[in-house]
């Protein structure tokens, strides 16, 4: 019974925060509500026995991506007029699209006979993830470092201020 209650609490946190992110008219509220959604997902990772992913989620998503996002919000919006900063247009088409896609996917989830092994007890995952990164996934791992380098240089080049003589 315990895991079920934990799951519903974390799911509620994630879904309510995600709803605020999606529907709030204030971009600052949206950005801060994303914190709750990411934390809820991090808790779900723990429930699924992924301890390393939990800490990665906290470090990179909440500590990195979210902070960068909030920086961008602060740099681009006049804080004074945030109340109209996050207008939504085409609400009805967006709701219809999301609703239709959601209905189809929900039907697919419910009516599929998923392979459903009995999960073993949660064990530490870091050893095996490191093993996988230096074994079968070594090429994607190396390419990932190239992608990150390209992103780093690209971000600097795109956002720098040009000084013309």
């Amino acid at each position, binding site marked *: 019974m315990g895991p079920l209650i934990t799951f519903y609490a974390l799911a509620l946190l994630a879904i309510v925060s995600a709803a605020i*992110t999606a529907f709030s008219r204030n971009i600052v509220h949206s950005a801060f509500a994303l914190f709750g959604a990411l934390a809820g997902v991090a808790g779900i990772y723990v429930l699924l026995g992924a301890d390393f992913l939990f800490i990665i989620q906290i470090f990179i*998503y909440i500590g990195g991506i979210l902070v960068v996002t909030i920086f961008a919000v602060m740099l681009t919006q006049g804080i004074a007029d945030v109340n109209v900063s996050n207008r939504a247009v085409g609400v009805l088409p967006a709701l219809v699209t999301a609703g239709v896609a959601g209905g189809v996917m929900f039907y697919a989830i419910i009516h599929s006979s998923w392979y459903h092994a009995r999960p073993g007890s949660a064990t530490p995952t870091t050893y095996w993830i490191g093993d996988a990164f230096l074994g079968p996934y070594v090429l994607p791992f190396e390419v990932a470092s190239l992608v990150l380098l390209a992103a780093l240089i690209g971000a600097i080049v795109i956002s720098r201020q040009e000084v013309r003589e």
Partner: protein
Amino acid sequence: MAGLTLNHFLVLGLILFLLGGYCVLARRNAIGILLGIELILNAANINYVAFSFYGGQAAKYDGQVFAIFVIMLAAAEAVIGLAIVLAIYQNLRTIDVSATESLSG
């Protein structure tokens, strides 16, 4: 883990995906769209980890490895996306995506 099934996690991922999709479709603020993309990527990650947890011994950690790659790409995407948003803001003083139409001729 009595009572919890794969479907619980898939439906949670579906709900987060739909909220993110709505965010991407309806927002006019470019940063709002990036927030929606983060939600979508998190929904995908929940599915990866759930499938790996309920997938038996054969592929026990593959889903988690993929989720780490997704998080890495999300970081790169957020950095580049926000840099582009800042560059647009410096040039046009707005990040309303329906106002940035100087390429449409």
